[in-house]
């Protein structure tokens, strides 16, 4: 357990480097890294600094954000099936982003894009917490999630189909499946600051989440399960999932798989699971993003395709265990 954090850090660093060195242009590794660090003339520094670097940074940030919010939601809702993508928070964020883009708000002010996605995500979390708070069962949570996802997906498809732009309708897939292809540093600067703020907010909840594992009554006795916890979680999740979805689309299952895999390693303590899941999420998303570039290099295979192939069987397994009454 003590070696877990150094090992995860090393894994993320290695995958970050691999992500920088993966691409259709097949650049020599040393030249590529020199161009990244030192710049210079010609197209090589542009490829490294403007195309590959933002992609790798967003891979770390979005993956870490999804892992962190997944672990936090699971801790607060005391339910291993909670995950921003599956229960509709990412979908609501995508709807907010699409509305900001198609109404032209995002052209008026660049910040309108992450802000609108943030509002969408906040509405999604607030609805979920209202419908299936710590006392709601798995069934309530999943049903509420299905309803919110369906509504958000339909809204996104409607907005894109109403767009006068001939390309907009084909982008429903991007918003439902997510992709990091051809993102720029502009996207990094838009998404990263609110995501860091959200991560800081969520990390302040970790002791309260620890207390909550003793049961809601015990946590309330300790003064740790009050409305402040709920608001910090809602705001933190929205601050992370909103901007992440605004730049990368809705990527599912990361926040489900990672906490599930890491939970035994940290003794099921949320306070340790939160940072571990952030690192694990970053590693999973970087690995997926490298894989989509290796499997079909000339097509933009969506990230959500890979995370779903890994995550959906695990999701079914969890539902199966919940159904048979076993602890998960």
């Amino acid at each position, binding site marked *: 357990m003590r070696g877990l954090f150094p090992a995860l850090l090393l894994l993320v660093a290695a995958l970050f480097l691999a992500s920088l060195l993966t691409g*259709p242009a097949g650049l020599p590794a040393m030249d590529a890294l020199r161009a990244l660090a030192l710049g210079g003339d010609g197209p090589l520094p542009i490829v490294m600094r403007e195309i590959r670097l933002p992609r790798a940074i967003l891979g770390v940030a979005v993956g870490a954000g999804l892992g962190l919010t997944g672990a936090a939601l699971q801790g607060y809702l005391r339910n291993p099936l909670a995950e921003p993508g599956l229960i509709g928070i990412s979908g609501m964020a995508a709807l907010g982003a699409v509305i900001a*883009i198609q109404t*032209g708000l*995002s052209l008026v002010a660049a910040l309108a894009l992450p802000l609108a996605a943030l509002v969408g995500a906040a509405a999604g979390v607030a609805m979920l917490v209202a419908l299936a708070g710590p006392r709601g069962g798995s069934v309530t949570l999943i049903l509420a999630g299905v309803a919110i996802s369906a509504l958000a997906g339909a809204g996104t498809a409607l907005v894109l189909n109403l767009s006068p732009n001939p*390309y*907009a309708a084909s*982008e429903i897939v991007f918003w439902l499946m997510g992709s990091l292809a051809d993102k720029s*540093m502009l996207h990094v600067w838009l998404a990263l600051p609110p995501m860091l703020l959200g991560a800081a907010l969520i990390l302040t909840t970790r002791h309260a989440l620890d207390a909550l594992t003793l049961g809601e009554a015990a946590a309330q006795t300790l003064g740790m399960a009050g409305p402040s916890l709920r608001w910090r979680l809602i705001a933190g999740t929205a601050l992370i999932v909103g901007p992440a979805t605004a730049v990368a689309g809705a990527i599912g299952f990361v926040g489900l798989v990672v906490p599930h895999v890491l939970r035994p390693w940290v003794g099921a303590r949320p306070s340790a699971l939160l940072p571990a899941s952030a690192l694990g999420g970053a590693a999973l998303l970087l690995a997926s993003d490298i894989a989509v570039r290796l499997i079909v290099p000339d097509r933009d295979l969506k990230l959500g395709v890979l995370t779903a192939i890994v995550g959906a069987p695990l999701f079914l397994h969890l539902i199966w265990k919940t159904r048979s009454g076993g602890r998960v």
Partner: protein
Amino acid sequence: MRGCVRRSDAILAAAVLIAAALPAGAAPQRVVSMNLCSDQLAMMLAAPEQLVSVSSLAQDPRLSPMADQAAAYKANTGRAEEIYLMRPDLVIAGTYTPPATVAMLRRLGIRVETPPPAEDFDAIRADITRMGDWLGQPQAARDLLARFDADLAAARRPGGRGRAALYEANGFTSGPDTLAGSILEAAGYANIAADHGISATTTLPLELLVMSDPDRLITGAKWPGQSQGEAILDHPALAAFPGRAQVTDLNWTCGTPFVTRAIRSLE
């Protein structure tokens, strides 16, 4: 076997004789075009009153270089029902017209032609002649062809002006076997798509485009509303080609004599 061949030859010969003997009045009198590209050729060649309707796209000034002329015609949106009610005796659709619509019109006894899109200048020349034959206006077609040949010869530039890249929404580029590629070549540019083994229209990853370091970058036009697909044209990595970006427009869309304007736009 031999008998069969001889009989089909005889039928063919008879058909040719009959066709030659038909009076000029056999040209279709109510023609409907439902494809942006055939709209333009039909408007250039049809006799007054012969062309009844063109597609609504032909009236869109963002898409059609003949939007003004097209405004004088009734517009259709490509649905079998509205086209049948116009009582056409010839419908000119296209390879990409929904097959159900074409099949429906044919079942209703209407002659439907589906010309494929022209991908080079020889195909445009053939299209002009064929449209003239369909409309029974061979002389108009010969005149247009002569003007097109003269325009094309005047617009063409010898090669060696450098390497150019075509880049459109969703990262698509066009190779030498496409109309846009032919326009590029006629303007005297080498197409970087060929360096990557691309001959038709397909995606080219952004970093390969940047690594190719083209002398000239020609991007697709932007549409109202926004899309992720077009966002790639605003990528900071492309801003590194200062003053080299140029936008393709309505003269690049169709294989019509307007392509000479597209060639000249690259001067």
